[in-house]
């Protein structure tokens, strides 16, 4: 794709932005131009400073050096007041955060107009707003049920509300932080179709992504951050996947490949499990995991994966059916006993279930084994042992942080995931449940996760891999089962499957459904 090129079209300029957090330079002298109608992809490793840069642009943070210039209203560039999201909105900058900022119990419509009108005039503002939105929706194709409550919407719909919210405020620059991390592949396609349409209408767009294929397919230009500095800024047409990966991590990425495994005896089984009702219920699910294999669970998210993971993790007892591990009945297990039986669980929502934000990196690394003798004696914590262990894990798993004592919430999204990975995989578990393990990870970290899952398999562990990413599933899994509306199909050898059939089954067509 080629985009507009004239110098006069510049709508946004970052000029020499530097941002430090204590000793750490999150952004170092970053300059960036954005032109009207352009789609810019911002790439970089986990912790490279992408989110920080966008937060400066939107006024959540103030840069220590440098300034943000915007074209306020076609009158040339002028400095944007630093540290003011309000000023950023006024100047036509809209931001869609990775964690949505919508009020769950208000309607989509009210969320969109909230903040643009005085609260007292909210009622009278609805009618004109509805009209303007109807127009925006037809023009952009962002289909949203305006009167539905946010809590009833899917992730993709919530994101569309966020985008509409920005457009409603007449945004001319739209920033999206990892918009596709939580979307299904279909939703991602729709999103990019919309973004292309909007950019053709003149909207300038910056999006952050770790998925290089979508960057190649949908951006005009790519900027790459490494260690807080901009190391590349070039038209997408001059890139390919390999080059992008190299630019990001500074060296070539070796694709992980699965050798022919040698699966052993059944390790973990689910028999006829039913639980819950509604969207996330499970119906008569059967599953057999053997040692030394990776069992992939494919499916569009929201088809019962969350409940499946909760049952396996010991967080939700099944209403009927049996769970067993190495022949022992584990149906009544809880999280503690599941962990103690040698089970590693990588949760899908790492911010909610994975870490305790205000606690330190070392405490988060020890939390699952806090009662083990290595972490306590007579009920007293062994801090030096915990911290030494943490230092080793930080090194081994390449967790980018300012040391084992910094609060986990200050880490970038990808590095938070690495805490969870280090904590769960380091004790060499017998079974691994990995739910969306590479979501939000950069290419290097993703290939690292893949290596570690394969290493667990080679050790004889069984791995259950829940993912939406068909490439990941086909590359790693020995067998793949498909989950759809709470029904799990029987697993089939990966070699006998192709993307087409899997895609159809994920959509609920073709292939038998387990009764």
């Amino acid at each position, binding site marked *: 794709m080629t985009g507009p090129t004239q110098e006069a079209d510049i709508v946004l300029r970052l000029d020499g932005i530097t941002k430090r957090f204590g000793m750490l330079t999150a952004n170092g002298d970053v300059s960036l131009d954005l032109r009207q109608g352009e789609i810019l992809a911002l790439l970089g490793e986990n912790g490279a400073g992408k989110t920080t840069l966008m937060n400066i642009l939107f006024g959540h943070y*103030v840069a220590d050096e440098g300034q943000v210039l915007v074209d306020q209203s076609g009158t040339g560039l002028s400095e944007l007041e630093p540290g003011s999201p309000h000023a950023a909105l006024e100047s036509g900058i809209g931001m869609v955060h990775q964690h949505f900022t919508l009020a769950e119990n208000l309607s989509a419509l009210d969320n969109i107009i909230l903040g643009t009108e005085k609260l007292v005039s909210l009622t009278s503002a609805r009618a004109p707003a509805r009209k303007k939105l109807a127009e925006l929706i037809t023009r952009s194709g962002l289909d949203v049920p305006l009167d539905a409550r946010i809590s009833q919407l899917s992730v993709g719909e919530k994101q569309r509300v966020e985008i509409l919210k920005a457009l409603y405020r007449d945004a001319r620059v739209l920033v999206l932080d990892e918009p596709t991390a939580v979307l299904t592949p279909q939703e991602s396609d729709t999103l990019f179709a919309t973004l292309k349409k909007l950019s053709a209408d003149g909207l300038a767009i910056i999006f952050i992504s770790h998925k290089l294929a979508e960057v190649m397919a949908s951006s005009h230009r790519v900027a790459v951050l490494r260690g807080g500095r901009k190391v590349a800024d070039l038209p997408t047409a001059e890139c390919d996947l390999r080059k992008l990966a190299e630019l990001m991590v500074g060296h070539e990425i070796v694709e992980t490949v699965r050798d022919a495994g040698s699966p052993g005896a059944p390790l973990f089984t689910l028999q006829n499990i039913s639980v819950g009702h509604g969207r996330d219920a499970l119906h008569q699910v059967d599953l057999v995991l053997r040692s030394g294999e990776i069992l992939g669970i494919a499916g569009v998210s929201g088809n019962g994966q969350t409940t499946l993971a909760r049952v396996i993790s010991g967080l939700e007892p099944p209403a009927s059916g049996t769970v067993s591990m190495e022949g022992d009945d584990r149906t009544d297990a809880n999280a*503690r006993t599941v962990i103690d039986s040698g089970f590693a669980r990588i949760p899908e929502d790492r911010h909610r279930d994975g870490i305790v934000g205000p606690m330190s990196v070392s405490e988060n690394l020890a939390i699952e084994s806090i009662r083990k003798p290595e972490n306590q004696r007579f009920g007293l914590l062994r*801090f030096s042992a915990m911290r030494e262990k943490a230092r080793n894990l930080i090194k081994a798993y390449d967790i980018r942080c300012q040391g084992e004592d910094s609060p986990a919430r200050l880490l970038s999204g990808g590095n938070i995931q690495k805490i969870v990975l280090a904590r769960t995989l380091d004790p060499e578990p017998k079974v691994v449940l990995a739910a969306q393990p590479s979501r939000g990870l950069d290419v290097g970290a993703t290939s690292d996760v893949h290596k570690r899952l394969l290493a667990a398999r080679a050790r004889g562990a069984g791995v259950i891999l829940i993912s939406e990413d068909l490439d990941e599933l086909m590359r790693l899994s020995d067998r793949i089962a498909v989950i759809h509306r709470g029904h799990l199909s029987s697993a089939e050898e990966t070699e006998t499957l192709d993307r087409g059939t899997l895609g159809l089954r994920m959509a609920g067509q073709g292939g038998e459904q387990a009764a």
Partner: protein
Amino acid sequence: MIRFEPRGPVSVSRMLAVSLAAAFAALVLAAIPMAFAGLSAFNAYSLMAKGAFGSLFAFTEMLTRATPLILTGLAAAVAFRAKLWNIGAEGQLYAGALAAVAVGTGAISAPGYLLIPMVALAGALAGGLVMLGPTLLKTRLGVDEVVTTLLLNFIILLFVQMMLEGPMQDPMGMGWPQSEPILDEAALPKLLERMRIHWGLVVALAAALGVYFLLKRTVWGFEIRAVGENAAAARHAGIPVTATFVRVGLLSGALAGLAGVGEVAGLKGYLTADLSPGFGYSGIVVAMLAGLSPIGVVFAALFIASIFVGADSMSRATGVSNYLADLIVAMALLCVLVSGLFLRFKVRFIGAPATRETAK
């Protein structure tokens, strides 16, 4: 133009500085209504300082007042750390006092070194058991503990009144609703001759150190912090969330119960229904002022006690109502809550671009 920007971890020294600044700001703000009452702030505050620190007697009175506040402050702090909202320290205090009186007025006869611990234990146990109910209702049925603990305060106070006018009334009390006096062997010894200050203060200080140690260095404390900061992640990581709540509830109630023990067995000698002028509720303020830190609780309790004792003495000298104390305490709480903003956010003054470089 003032802008707020989120801040990273907060150092202890900054926390201390902000707390002191908040206390100072409260005193300044309270001077305004004083001026309307025709009182010079300097005068009033020096009278108050004299009332709280001016003599050995004043100082020990202040410490005596701080003793129950430290314990109820700890009760609130430890519970709030786990996000268990125990608003019922007042009731737990009375339950503790009632149990102390039940054991200490002759039901059991034993030498002091046995009887005093038994009285204390009974009070702590009673307070803890009172808090156990709301805790179990929360963990089992999801009943809001704010409501249950708050309402229990009134139930317990009424129960105490019933006991004091019925079975536990002092037959020698000429019909007053008060209990029999605590036996001499069961009373907490005084710390100083002819002063009211008693061993309860030592118990309170030890409790503060104990809670600090518990939260900081033990597995249980780790679990309390984890549950309080993110219960979902704690549960996922295999931490026994329900058991942790129960532990916290028992501990919190026991600390409040001990405050009641100190008041009857250390200070008053017998139980009346006006034993506590709201120590349980003030404990919440103490805990908030302290930022839920157990060591901070000691200082916050001393601050509040000196305001109350000082204001009493000032009002005796000037005739200005000692409600002023409530005013200052309320101001202090507001100031500390506002100062929380300064702890979580960096304040930047943004005007000309030049100021940006300097305002780091």
